[in-house]
């Protein structure tokens, strides 16, 4: 028999149940994780008070900031309710990615379950100063795709000597998450043909020459942020 333990921040829980989360600046809210990232703008749509429901949000960039909360609860509290929320959001997306990459429905489903299990098991490797949750989930899914679908090996770079900082500066978390959100918007705004090329590159097999034709990815700022985070990690424990 499975049951869920709910660890709610009462303020946030109330706001979500009412389906209204005020937009605006980060307000310092008391959680075990420090102050929260910026809240998404007001959400419209039906609300279901019998359980926490993820209301459909047409601004994917805002939704990303919610997942940090869930992810940190999984990491620090082994919170299964938070995991369930992550599963409901990401499992179909991972399954969709695998299907677009050529997997049949059954394999894609199996793989997606595997990816979510890995998310649970490797939660302590998630670093919110270097990646959004979606990015991190993507890397797990990509590795499983190579392993299971392509039956190939993908060597990974050497681990950093130490894991992510247990209590990173919130400003650094926020900045990286905002950069990730901006990248999502920028990609959505790309001309159709460029967007299509990028999808083909990530879901299929393009030659190096075809990949070289991809332009318009504004990666300068996010690269810098990630580089700064790496530098901090290199020096953090000295």
């Amino acid at each position, binding site marked *: 028999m499975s049951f869920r333990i709910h660890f709610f921040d009462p303020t946030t829980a109330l706001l979500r149940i009412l389906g209204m989360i005020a937009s605006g600046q980060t307000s310092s809210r008391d959680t075990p994780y420090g102050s929260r990232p910026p809240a998404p703008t007001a959400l419209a749509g039906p609300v279901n008070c019998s359980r926490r429901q993820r209301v459909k949000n047409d601004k994917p960039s805002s939704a990303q900031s919610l997942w940090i909360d869930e992810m940190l609860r999984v990491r620090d509290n082994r919170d299964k309710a938070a995991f369930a929320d992550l599963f409901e959001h990401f499992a179909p997306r991972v399954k969709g990615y695998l299907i677009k990459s050529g997997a049949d429905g059954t394999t894609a489903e199996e793989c997606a379950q595997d990816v979510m299990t890995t998310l649970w098991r490797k939660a302590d490797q998630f670093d919110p100063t270097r990646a959004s949750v979606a990015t991190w989930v*993507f890397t797990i899914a990509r590795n499983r795709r190579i392993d299971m679908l392509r039956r190939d090996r993908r060597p990974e770079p050497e681990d950093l000597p130490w894991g992510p900082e247990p209590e990173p500066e919130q400003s650094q978390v926020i900045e990286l998450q905002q950069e990730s959100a901006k990248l999502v918007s920028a990609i959505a705004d790309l001309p159709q043909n460029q967007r299509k090329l990028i999808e083909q590159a*990530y879901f299929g097999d393009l030659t*190096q020459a075809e990949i070289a034709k991809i332009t318009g990815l504004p990666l300068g700022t996010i690269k810098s942020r990630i580089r700064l985070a790496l530098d901090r990690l290199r020096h953090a424990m000295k």
Partner: protein
Amino acid sequence: MTDKHERPMTEATIKHHLDEATLLAYAAGTLPEAFNLIVATHLSLCDTCRASAQAYDAVGGALLDDDSAAMTAGSLDQILAQLDNGFDAPARHVSTSDIPTPLHSYIGDDLESIRWRPVGMGVKQAILRTSKGATARLLSIPAGAAMPDHGHHGTEMTLVLKGAFQDDDAYFGRGDIEIADSDVQHIPVADIHEDCICLAVTDAPLRFQGILPRIWQKFVRI
């Protein structure tokens, strides 16, 4: 905390980096194994490219936006039931030798125990076992010696692990990666101070000039 390495794994002096297309392909997961290996090894030494690679991961994350493939009913409960199962926590892999971790499962962690095969003119190689589509080898070039004159079909990437080489005006030290496409005809020369050990990956056979090297080519699988 004492650091076991004599020097940090990352090299601050890297001037020759991976190109954007390769970084994107690595993030997308579409490179053959040998290229994955040389990219992963370079990233172990180069934080600039590691940050770039993670930026391309973020592109992948941005593309995870299609939720139309619903999971079957009960799949969540199935997973929840298994979450408490024991599992081995993944170990952290940090190299204590000059050889970055991604290479360990291919060649071990000790340069002294590599089984070299002579290629001619003092150059030695060790071919790594990787999947089809590309070849990875370690090359050892004696101090001051030149690689046999060759051009390529396809793409060749050469990553310095020890020592250095000069190619025309460009100097490649530990961590530097040289990328050469099929137009390039080049003669890298190892630095005079020590033997140069590189990881070299190609997606096509090398073309050697002259008759003798071509005979070697058949025998040594270059």
